[in-house]
C-alpha cells in the first residue's frame, strides 16, 4: 500500500529582491568572490568537518562548485557563472563580481526594473560596439608570429591564481611549456577545417614544478615493463612501427550480447573456441608485421605471452579516454572485431621508448607528425597540483579561443576602468531620441549608467587587497594602484609609475583621481584616448572572448534576477 502524504502548499514570495535575507546573502557572496580576485587574492580553504581532503583555492569553478547556496536568486547567479566557466574556463570571478555589482547597484536605484533593464541593455550594446570597434583603447591584437603577447597572456593566467604557489622561474618555465604544448596541438598542414589537437596532462605529484615537461605524442603508463632492457620493437620495411588498436575486449571470456539462449553440448567449450580465435588473430598480427598491439580493454594472458614471444609489444587497459588521442597519434582505426582484420586499420609510429618520471614508467609513443602532446605536470602538494592543472587547462583553452579571435584585452583592471570612463563619456552625450526610444528620462538613464560604471569599477577595485589606493586617470581611463602607506606627496605622478596593465607611465600628467565607490567620478571631456601599445611594456592581458561573453552574461543574469517579481517554491 502506498503511503499518502499530504501535499504541502507551495511557498509564494513576492518581490524577492527587497528581502533582507537576499541582500545579506548577496553581499556575503560578493565579499567572498571579491576577496579572491586577482594575483593578490586571498585563498579560501574548503573543508568538510567530517573529513576528506582540504582544498585551498581562489578559483571560481572550485569555489562556486562547493558552495551550497540556499537563496534561489543566488543559485541562478552561481549557475550562470558556472555555465560561463564551463564554456570559457576564464573570467569566472570577473563575471560573478560584476553580476553581483550590477544587482547591488541597480537594486538601490529608484527606477522601475523594466526601465533599468531597457537602459542597461542599451549600455551593454554601447560597450560591445566599443569593444568590437577598431578604435577601442583597451584591446590589443595578438600577433601569433611573435611570442611576446602570447607569453604575456599565458603568464597573466598562471599568476592570477596564487594557490598554485609558483615563483618567478616556475612561472616562466610553465609559460614556455604551455605555449610549447599549444604549438604542438596546431596542425602543420592546414586544411579548410583545421581541428586543433589535444594536450594530455599527466599528473606527477610531489616533484618540483621545474621538473614538468612537454613531449610530443602520447605517454601510456605501463607498470610492469622492465627497465634497462632495450625495447624489442619490430619495424616494417619502411622503418616504421605498425600499430593495431583494439576497442573490443580481447579477454576471450566470450561476452555475448545475444538475448536468446545458447545451448552448449557436453565437451564443447566456448572459451577455448574464443581463445583459439584470439590466437589465430595473434598469428595474423605477427604475419602482418605489427609491432605494437594496444587494447582499450583487457587482453588474455596467453595472447599477451604469444605476442611477446614474437617480439610484439602488447599493452592493454588503455581506457576509453585515451582512445581518441591514440587514434589520432597512430592514425589507426580502432578494431571492433576479433574475427577479421582489415589491413586498412593499422596505424604507424616513428618510434617507441620508455620514459620514467618520478616512480612511474611510461611507454612513449612517438609519431611522425601529430597534434597530440603530453604535458607532464609536477607540483609539490596535491592541492597545489589540482589548482595548477586547472590553470594550465584554462591557459590552453584561452589560447584556443585567441586563435579563433586574435585579440586580447588589457588586464589589471584597466579594461574595466576604461570601459567605465567610455560609458560615462558616451552617456553624457546621447541624443534625446535615444531616451524616447527607451521610454525613459535622461535622469533615469544617467542613474542607471552611473550604476553600470560603478559595477565595472568595483571589479577593478577588487584587485586591491593590501590597502592599495586605486586611481584612474582622466586621459586613458586606465587603472593605477598606489601601494598603501605611501607618503603623502603633492603630486600623484610621484607615487604612480605605471598603470596596472603596463601600457601607460607617469611621464605626462594624466590628472589622476580616486576610483571611489560612491562619490561621483568626474566625467572625461573627450572619449578616453587610445594609448600606443608597446608589446614589451605589457604586464597583463585578459582573454577577449571570455571577457566579452562574461560581461554580457553578467548583465543578462543580473537583469533576469532584477526582473523577478515573485518566487514560487514547490516544497514537496
Amino acid at each position, binding site marked *: 500500500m502506498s503511503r499518502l502524504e499530504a501535499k504541502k502548499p507551495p511557498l509564494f514570495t513576492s518581490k524577492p529582491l527587497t528581502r533582507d535575507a537576499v541582500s545579506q546573502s548577496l553581499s556575503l557572496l560578493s565579499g567572498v568572490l571579491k576577496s579572491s580576485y586577482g594575483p593578490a587574492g586571498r585563498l579560501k580553504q574548503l573543508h568538510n568537518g567530517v573529513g576528506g581532503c582540504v582544498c585551498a583555492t581562489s578559483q571560481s569553478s572550485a569555489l562556486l562548485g562547493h558552495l551550497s547556496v540556499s537563496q534561489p536568486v543566488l543559485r541562478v547567479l552561481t549557475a550562470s557563472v558556472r*555555465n560561463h566557466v564551463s564554456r570559457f574556463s576564464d573570467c569566472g570571478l570577473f563575471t560573478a563580481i560584476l553580476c553581483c555589482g550590477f544587482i547591488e547597484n541597480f537594486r538601490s536605484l529608484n527606477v*522601475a526594473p523594466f526601465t533599468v533593464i*531597457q537602459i542597461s*541593455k542599451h549600455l551593454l550594446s554601447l560597450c560591445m560596439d566599443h569593444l568590437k570597434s577598431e578604435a577601442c583603447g583597451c584591446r590589443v591584437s595578438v600577433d601569433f608570429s611573435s611570442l611576446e603577447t602570447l607569453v604575456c597572456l599565458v603568464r597573466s593566467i598562471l599568476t592570477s591564481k596564487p594557490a598554485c604557489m609558483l615563483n618567478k622561474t616556475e612561472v616562466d618555465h610553465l609559460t614556455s611549456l604551455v605555449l610549447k604544448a599549444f604549438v604542438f596541438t596546431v596542425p602543420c598542414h592546414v586544411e579548410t577545417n583545421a581541428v586543433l589537437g589535444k594536450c594530455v596532462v599527466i599528473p606527477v605529484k610531489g616533484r618540483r614544478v621545474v621538473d614538468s615537461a612537454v613531449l610530443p605524442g602520447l605517454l601510456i603508463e605501463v607498470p610492469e615493463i622492465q627497465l634497462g632492457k632495450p625495447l624489442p620493437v619490430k619495424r616494417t620495411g619502411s622503418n616504421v612501427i605498425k600499430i593495431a588498436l583494439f576497442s573490443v575486449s580481447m579477454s576471450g571470456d566470450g561476452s555475448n550480447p545475444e538475448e536468446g*539462449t*545458447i545451448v552448449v553440448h557436453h565437451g564443447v567449450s566456448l572459451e577455448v573456441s574464443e581463445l583459439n580465435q584470439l590466437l589465430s588473430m595473434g598469428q595474423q598480427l605477427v604475419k602482418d608485421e605489427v609491432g605494437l598491439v594496444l587494447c582499450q580493454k583487457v587482453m588474455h594472458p596467453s595472447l599477451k605471452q604469444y605476442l611477446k614471444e614474437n617480439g610484439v609489444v602488447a599493452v592493454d587497459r588503455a581506457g576509453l579516454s585515451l582512445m581518441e588521442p591514440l587514434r589520432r597519434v597512430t592514425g589507426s582505426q*580502432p578494431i571492433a572485431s576479433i574475427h577479421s582484420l582489415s589491413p586498412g586499420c593499422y596505424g604507424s609510429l616513428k618510434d617507441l621508448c620508455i620514459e620514467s618520471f618520478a616512480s612511474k614508467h611510461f611507454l612513449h609513443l612517438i609519431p611522425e607528425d601529430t597534434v597530440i602532446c603530453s604535458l607532464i605536470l609536477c607540483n609539490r602538494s596535491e592541492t597545489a597540483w589540482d589548482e595548477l592543472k586547472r590553470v594550465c587547462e584554462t591557459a590552453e583553452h584561452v589560447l584556443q579561443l585567441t586563435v579563433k579571435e586574435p585579440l586580447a584585452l588589457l588586464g589589471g583592471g584597466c579594461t574595466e576602468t576604461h570601459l567605465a570612463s567610455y560609458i560615462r563619456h558616451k552617456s553624457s552625450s546621447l541624443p534625446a531620441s535615444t531616451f524616447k526610444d527607451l521610454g525613459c528620462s535622461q535622469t533615469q538613464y544617467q542613474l542607471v549608467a552611473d550604476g553600470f560604471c560603478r559595477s565595472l569599477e568595483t571589479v577593478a577595485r577588487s584587485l586591491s587587497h593590501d590597502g592599495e589606493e586605486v586611481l584612474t586617470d582622466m586621459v586613458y581611463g586606465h587603472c593605477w594602484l598606489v601601494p598603501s602607506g605611501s607618503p603623502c606627496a603633492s603630486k600623484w605622478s610621484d607615487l604612480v609609475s605605471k598603470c596596472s596593465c603596463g601600457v601607460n607611465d607617469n611621464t605626462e600628467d594624466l590628472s589622476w583621481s580616486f576610483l571611489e565607490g560612491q562619490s561621483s567620478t568626474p566625467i572625461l571631456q573627450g572619449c578616453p584616448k587610445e594609448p600606443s601599445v608597446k608589446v614589451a611594456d605589457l604586464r597583463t592581458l585578459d582573454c577577449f572572448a571570455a571577457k566579452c*561573453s562574461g560581461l554580457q552574461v553578467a548583465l543578462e543574469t543580473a537583469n*533576469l534576477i532584477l526582473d523577478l517579481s515573485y518566487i514560487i517554491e514547490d516544497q514537496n
Partner: protein
Amino acid sequence: MCRTSASLGSPPRLWQEAAALAGAVRGALGPRGGRALLLRPTGEALPTRDGRLLLEALSVEPPAARLMAARACSHRAATGDGAKSFVVLLAAVLGGLQAAGAGAGLRRALRDFETQVLERAAARGLRRHLRPAPPGSLEPLLEPYLAGRLGPGERRCLARLGAEMCRRCGPAAAARPRVLRLLGRRFAELHAAVPGLPLASSRLLPGIILRRDFAAYCPTDGELRALLVTEPLRPALTAPGVEFVVDSEGQYQASQRWITRRTEALMKHLQSNNVKLLLSSVKQEEVVIYYAKLYGVSVVECLSSEEMALISEITGVSPYTPVGDNMDREITETAVVTFCQSLLLVSKRCVHIGFASVCAFQPHCLVLCGPVDGVNEQHAAALQEAFIMLQQLFKTADQREDWKAEGESQSKASDVCTWHSSATQKQLVIENTCNTNQVSECQLKALSDETEGKIFDSDKSDLLVHNQKKHSIPVLVAHYSDTVTACECLDVGKGLEKTCFHIVPFKQEESCAGIAQDYSSCLIEAGSVLPVGGYFEILLHYYIQDYAKQCQQSEVTIVSKVVADALLSIPKALYGTAERDGFTKFYLEAINLLRKNQPLPVNNEGLESVYCKYQLVISVLHCVTELLSIDLVIGIRRPLQKTEDRDSEDDT
C-alpha cells in the same frame, strides 16, 4: 466514502477565489510584468511568465479555483496564449456579476448574451476595425506576444529569431500555416540550447542538429544518401525465446565469423548503394560501427522517436529493414542529405545534417543561447507557443446561431457613406449630411501595402449609405487613388498631413456587406489583427454596450454591462504598472473617437490576433456558466485520469 460539499459556492465566494488567482498572476501580465522563479522539488529553478506554469505551480486547492485554473490552461493549450488574461477577466466578470446581484436567470442570460449581443458586437462593430495581418513579416505579431512572456531585454532578439525561423522554414507564404503547425509541434527537435553564452550568440542554422556525436564519422563533400534504421544491423545468433545449440567449437566459430562477414556485407551493400549515413534509433553493435567506418558510412545512433518522426516527415522516407538474404536488392528508401558535418556547440560535439525536403517545410534549427538552462527553457517554451499562437491567425471565428438579417431594420448603426474614387486625387472629402456646412479635407494615408488585392472600379464605387444616428456622423465622399486599399481612413480636421495618424482602418468589404445586409456566418476572418495595448477590449466594450441597448431582456442587459466593464480590467492591468492615469486618458480618448465614428490612433507596438482574443472572451463566459451550473462537488478517492483535461467545449 466520498465527501461532498453543496456547490462550488455563491458568486461572492467564486469571485473571491478568482480574485485571489488573478492577484497571483497579475504581476506577470502584460509587457511590463515581471518574472516568477519556479523552484521545483528537484532544485531546478525555472524563470517564467507563462500563465499555465504559474497556475500549475500555485497548485490551488479549492475546487472552484482548480476548475478555473484548468479552464484557463485548456484555453491556453488551444490558442497558445491568454492564461493570465483569462484569470484576470474571469475575476472581473465574477466580480461584476456579484456586484450586480444577478438572480436565477443568470445562466440563461449568459447564453443569450453570447448570441444576441456578443456575436453582433463582434460582427457588426468590432469587425469593421479589423485589419488583415501584414503578409510579409510576423515580427509585429511575435514581439507583443513575447513581450507578455519574456523579460524586456530579450523579446526583440527572440522575435527577430522566431520570425526569421518562420520565414526560412516556410519561404512560400501559402505554406505558412503548415510550417507553423510543424514548428509548433516539433520545436523541441528544431532547437538546441546552449547554457553559458549570452542571448546575442543565438543563431539560426540550416538543417537540423542532433544532440549527440557521430558513432562513426567519415567526412564527405557534397550531397549524399542517408538511411533510417530502427533495429540492430548485426544479425543475432539467437533471439529472445530462441535456442541456439552449439555442437562443436568449429560450428560456434563459424557462426560468429558468419555474423561478422554478414555485417561487413551489409555495409558493402550500403556503400554500393551510395548510402553514406546511417541514422539509427537503436544503439548498434561495435562491429557495425567498425565496418561502417571501414566502408565510409557515417553513423548516428540513439535517435529519439521524435527525431526519427521529424526526419521521416521532412524527407518522406520510412525506416529500412534489411530483409533476409537478399543483398542484391537496391535500396530505394533513402533520404537526400545536402550536408552532414560535426558541429561543435561550444564544448559538445553535435551532428548537423541538412536534408532535402520533400514538403513545404525547409528544415532550419535554432541554437538558443542563454546564461542558464532555465532561461533557455523559458525562451524555447515562449517561442514554441508563439508558433501555436500564430496558427490561430489562420482560423476564423464562426457564430453559433444564424441570426442573419434579422432585426436589421432596427439597427441604428447602419452607417451610410458615399464613396467616390478617382485615380488622380488622393483627397478625401468629408461631407456631413446633417450639417452640410462642415467640410474638411484630409490626407488619406493609403495603407496600400496592406491591400487585399481588391481593385475598386473607380466609377462604380459610389456607395450610398445612410446615417440615422443622433450625433452627426460624417458621410464621406472619398476620392482616392488606383488600388483601393481594403481600408479607408479619415482624419477629420485640417492640416493633418503633419500629424499623420496611424489609423485603425475599416474594412471596405465590411461596409459593403453592411449595406447589402449580407452577413456571412464568419464573425472574424482568418488573419484579422488589431494593434496591441487594449484596443480589442475597448472596442468590444464599446460595441457590447451599444448593442445591449437593443436588448429587451433586463438580465441580458445586466450581463452585457458586467462583461463590457470586465473587459476593461485587462487594459487597466496593463496600464496599471506603467502610469496611473494612463488608462483613463487612453480610454476617454478612444471612446470619444468611437462615438464620433472616427478611427482610433494606433501605437507602433505591434499587433495581436483577434481570433485568440475573441476566443478568450468566449472561453471565460463558458467558464462562468460552467461554474454557476455546478451544484455538487464530489470528493473521490482516486485522481481522475486525463479525461478531465479534455478540451473544453469552446475549443475549436
